[in-house]
């Protein structure tokens, strides 16, 4: 059964090819059937493979490596097209296919009337390279059905690339998937291509992540040159053998891989592309820019964790980047008005938590948070999509309100998602995964009270901004009439994801609360954990603090955004308040910084050298020769008296020279 593994990425690939080559002849029904069905089948096969891998007992089997063919073979360098299954890639594969399938299903209905309609220009979207923002033209008529087909073709291709990324048995194939998801991200952010702002956002995403990818590529050169292979398992074994802890090469390699990871996972300082990426259709934001692709950086570091154990400096950097990112992004999430941008900053912040976990060596906790986050964040985006659609492309949360009556299913599922994101104690999955990370940040030998403190502040802020959304969107007075209601294909995924956002947490429950460790045991063979000496009392004390932070955040949100909205207005009214909120809305000024330092100089150089200075030098040379020719040409007048005069003058000069010298 395990040998069906290759079908998991191959089925969506088939779907993509069918849609790309022959999709023009298909009806929308067929397109949806192929697009959704290919991912559904892939999920089924993934389930079968997973079952074969774990067996009835639920314990992971031996890692399975399926080599399809040798990609290339030159002087000892022989990467394969091969897939590697262990508990880490299995968890990733199952989450990707499950969430991917649900989002495809949702899209089949959602995109029916969205294939043709561009989203209005977002709020405060910063422009990247490309044209400045221009208001969206109305409708993309004549392109209706091909948009529907294009959407599913790209989405299928994305699933292929993402699965390749997590299943690859060597870093070169991983890199193929890595760049492939970047391409699909670009294509889908710019899906509504008429609006130049979308094009700019799409290009920005590709270019910024490519910067990270280049670092990753150089990291591959370092690893391959010094360790002689790119097969991940061999690589880790050789690194542990040949490089002592703290060795220079290990540190350099780990930092270079980290460069790739922060680009893809939108961590500081390469996080600027993700908020703009919200220009894409909402299901895209849910799948690519929340649940799966942006967590690729987390996966890469978890996959190569042996290397990070050899490079303590790099690992500490991971923790610090995670902690700082989670705080900065949480502050920005707090002040955005666009519902999708709130969720985008929230994603950056939550991935910050994953990086924090990786940085303190809590590999399994990072993977666990990835899993719960995939459920609740996909849920939040999909529910937000329902809201936006129902309010006719309204993104501004201050123009929403009271929707809990009009959209009951959406309200309850969104509430569950937000509670999970906020880490509402005991019943939500987000609580258990976040609590685990915070606990490790304190108790791990690599942890520190500072990291824990940052995470705790983040937990408070997370609860605050999550319920800011809930209260503004679903409570209060209705400010706009809700239009279309979601159908079954959209409600179904919401309900399944909501269930996941609640129960997924019970896979790993701390000692005091019930002591379940299914998840950590399942992944233990791949992702080792630390033995901690901290007492149960400390642990429970910390847990209570975490719970209080979340509850406090929710209560403050209740007061500020429902009971006394005047308070917020008053704070923002002050000079300090308004400056700070503008600073946070702009994402701490990173866009402006990069614009001044990199984008403008590049554009200036490109414009200044448009006509190629080197070519101008040659043209100048040609001009000189023409001038020389013109001067000489003038001497040839055809008049004998001139010739005679010059002849005479020349003779005089020569005679004079001879006589005088």
């Amino acid at each position, binding site marked *: 059964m395990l040998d069906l593994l290759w079908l998991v990425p191959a089925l969506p690939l088939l779907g993509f090819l069918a849609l*790309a080559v022959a999709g023009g002849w298909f009806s929308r029904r067929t397109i949806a059937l192929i697009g959704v069905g290919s991912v559904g089948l892939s999920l089924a096969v993934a389930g079968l493979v997973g079952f074969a891998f774990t067996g009835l007992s639920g314990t992971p089997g031996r890692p399975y490596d399926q080599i399809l*063919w*040798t*990609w*290339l*073979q*030159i*002087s000892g*360098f022989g990467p394969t*097209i091969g897939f590697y299954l262990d508990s880490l890639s299995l968890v990733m594969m199952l989450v990707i296919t499950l969430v991917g399938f649900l989002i495809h299903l949702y899209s089949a209905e959602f995109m029916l009337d969205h294939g043709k309609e561009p989203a209005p220009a977002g709020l405060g979207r910063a422009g990247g*390279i*490309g*044209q400045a923002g*221009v208001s969206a*033209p109305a409708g*993309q008529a*004549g*392109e209706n059905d*091909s948009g529907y087909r294009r959407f599913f073709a790209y989405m299928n291709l994305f699933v292929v690339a993402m699965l390749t990324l997590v299943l690859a048995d060597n870093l*070169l194939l991983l*890199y*193929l998937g890595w*760049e*492939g998801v970047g*391409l699909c991200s*670009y294509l889908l952010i*710019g899906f509504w*291509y*008429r*609006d*130049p702002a979308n*094009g700019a956002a*799409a*290009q920005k995403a*590709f*270019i910024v992540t*490519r*910067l990270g*990818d*280049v670092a990753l*590529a*150089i990291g*591959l*050169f*370092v690893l*391959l*040159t010094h360790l002689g292979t790119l097969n991940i398992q061999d690589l880790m074994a050789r690194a542990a053998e040949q490089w002592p802890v703290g060795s220079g090469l290990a540190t350099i390699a780990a930092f270079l891989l980290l460069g790739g990871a922060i680009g893809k996972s939108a961590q500081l300082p390469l996080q600027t592309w993700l908020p703009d990426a919200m220009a894409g259709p909402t299901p895209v934001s849910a799948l690519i820019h929340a649940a799966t692709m942006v967590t690729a950086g987390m996966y890469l570091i978890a996959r190569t964790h042996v290397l990070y154990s050899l490079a303590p400096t790099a690992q500490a950097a991971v923790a610090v980047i995670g902690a700082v990112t989670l705080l900065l992004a949480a502050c920005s999430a707090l002040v955005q008005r666009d519902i999708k941008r709130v969720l985008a900053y929230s994603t950056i912040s939550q991935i910050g938590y994953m990086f924090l976990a990786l940085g303190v060596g809590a590999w399994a906790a990072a993977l666990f948070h990835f899993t719960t986050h995939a459920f609740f964040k996909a849920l939040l985006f999909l529910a937000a999509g329902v809201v936006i659609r129902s309010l006719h492309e309204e993104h501004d949360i201050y123009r929403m309100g009271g929707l809990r009556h009009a959209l009951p299913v959406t309200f309850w599922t969104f509430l569950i998602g937000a509670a999970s994101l906020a880490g509402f104690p005991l019943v939500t999955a987000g609580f258990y995964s976040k609590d685990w990370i915070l606990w490790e940040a304190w108790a791990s030998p690599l942890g520190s009270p500072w990291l824990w403190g940052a995470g705790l502040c983040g937990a408070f802020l997370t609860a605050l901004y999550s319920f800011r959304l809930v209260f503004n969107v679903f409570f209060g007075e209705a400010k706009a009439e809700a239009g279309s209601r979601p159908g079954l294909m959209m409600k179904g995924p919401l309900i399944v994801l909501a269930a996941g956002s609640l129960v997924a947490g019970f896979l790993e429950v701390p000692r005091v609360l019930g002591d379940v460790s299914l998840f950590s045991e399942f992944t233990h063979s791949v992702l080792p954990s630390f033995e901690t000496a901290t007492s149960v009392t400390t642990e429970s004390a910390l847990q209570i603090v975490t719970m209080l932070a979340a509850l406090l955040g929710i209560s403050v949100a209740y007061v500020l955004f429902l009971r006394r909205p005047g308070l917020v207005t008053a704070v923002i009214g002050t000079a300090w308040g308004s400056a700070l909120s503008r600073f946070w809305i702009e994402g701490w000024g990173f866009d402006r910084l990069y614009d001044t330092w990199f984008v403008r100089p*590049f554009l200036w*150089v*490109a*414009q200044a*050298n*448009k006509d*190629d200075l*080197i*070519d101008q*030098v*040659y043209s100048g040379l040609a001009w000189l020769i023409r001038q020389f020719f013109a001067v000489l040409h003038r001497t040839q007048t055809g008049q004998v008296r001139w010739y005679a005069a010059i002849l005479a003058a020349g003779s005089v000069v020569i005679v004079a020279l001879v006589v005088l010298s």
Partner: protein
Amino acid sequence: MILVWLIVLLLAAGPVAWMLERRESQWSRWIALGALAIDLVLALILWTEREATVSLSNQGVWLADLSIPWIPRFGITFHLALDGLSLLLVLLTIFLGVTAVAASWTEIRERAGFFYFNLLWVLAGVLGVFLAMDLFLFFVFWEVMLVPMYFLISVWGHEHRVYAAVKFFLFTQAGSLLMLIAILGLTFIHTQQTGVVTFDYQQLLGTTMDQTVALWLMLGFFAAFAVKLPAVPFHAWLPDAHTEAPTGGSVILAGLLLKTGAYGLIRFAVPLFPDAAQAFAPVAMVLGMVGILYGAVLAFAQTDLKRLVAYSSISHLGFVLLGVFSWNAIALEGAVMQMLAHGITTGALFILAGALQERLGTRDMRRMGGLWATVPRFGAITLVFSIASLGLPGSGNFLGEFLVLLGSYRANVLVTVLAALGLVAAVIYSLAIMQRIFHGPAGESWTAPDLSTRDLVTLGAMIAVQVWLGLYPQPVLDTAGQALQNLRGFGEVTVLISRR
């Protein structure tokens, strides 16, 4: 003999195509296509035969070899020979020749017979360059490429065709002249030492000489090849020539003529003067790196689609220069892969640019925009080649660039890291193509037919080859591998000899 037939067939078909135009104007393009089709079959036979005898041919250097005395007095022979490197480039030449004919099918209406005559003769010249193993013969073919190309640009080109053609001719000819001097110098030194007058490549290999002299002679070869490649700062002819040439001419210029420069470096400049090349390598690698970045920035700034693609060629060929002068197995394989992949990708982009110009009457991207809605197939296929051009994994371009950088990392870390930034720059200009032409609001209300079936077949074949290069490159790597190993061997052997 098959080697001669490859060339003679094209040389003979040229005049026939020209003559028969008077009878029936349709005939000349069919003759050109037919001749190239036969050539393609012949070349594929060569390749498959070679696959069968691969284990036997390891000792011999050549897979096919033909030597006929030509001017015995000066030791000049008509010596054609084929190894894996030549074979791949011969295949590329014929394949792109077919696509160039297909791209010119409806574009060329004026004096079509003479057009196909020139096209076939350029291709014959290119084949000769890839096969000649006598330096004098090599030089003859080098010039045979030049003249018909000049006519292709100056007769069927666009607005500034004569300026572009003259510029092309002057740059190339200046380089050729230096190479001729270097060839004569090398023969002279060889004669002094051994008393044998010869232009034969294999006999000239391993000629020992003073280091300074070797460096100057090497620079003579390098000049010709660096102009053709082109390496910055000798690239100024390229944007004009590529932009002004008709579509078929641009395909051949970018896809093949540039490759003759790269081929010359690998075949002649380095193996004939290994020590001098090694001393010069840091300079050449820096030139390659500068070319990668300089070309990419310029490409982004262009508003003319063909000019943008032309400057992107400079950037891509920078990788080849970097790879060749890293001179290790991985970098050289990468350089060869980059040559093949760039030929396909850039050829396709020029075909697309030509087809767009045929429909809209302009290449100015400022007047375009939002064309995806009008011509979706056009957009989709341009997208495929744009992302190949930015080196997305799965394309041959990616493997080429990755292997070159991997190899050059071993030779020079700093240059490699800077060159790798070219990967970011490539994204910027490649995506600009899509954004400016197919995305954004509609520039003008164009109505144009989408790609025809003929275009789809041509471009579909090019996509297939590109994906094959990207995902199953081993046959190509193997074919090139043995030849490259031999070439590296020449270098090492002569190093040993000269050190004794």
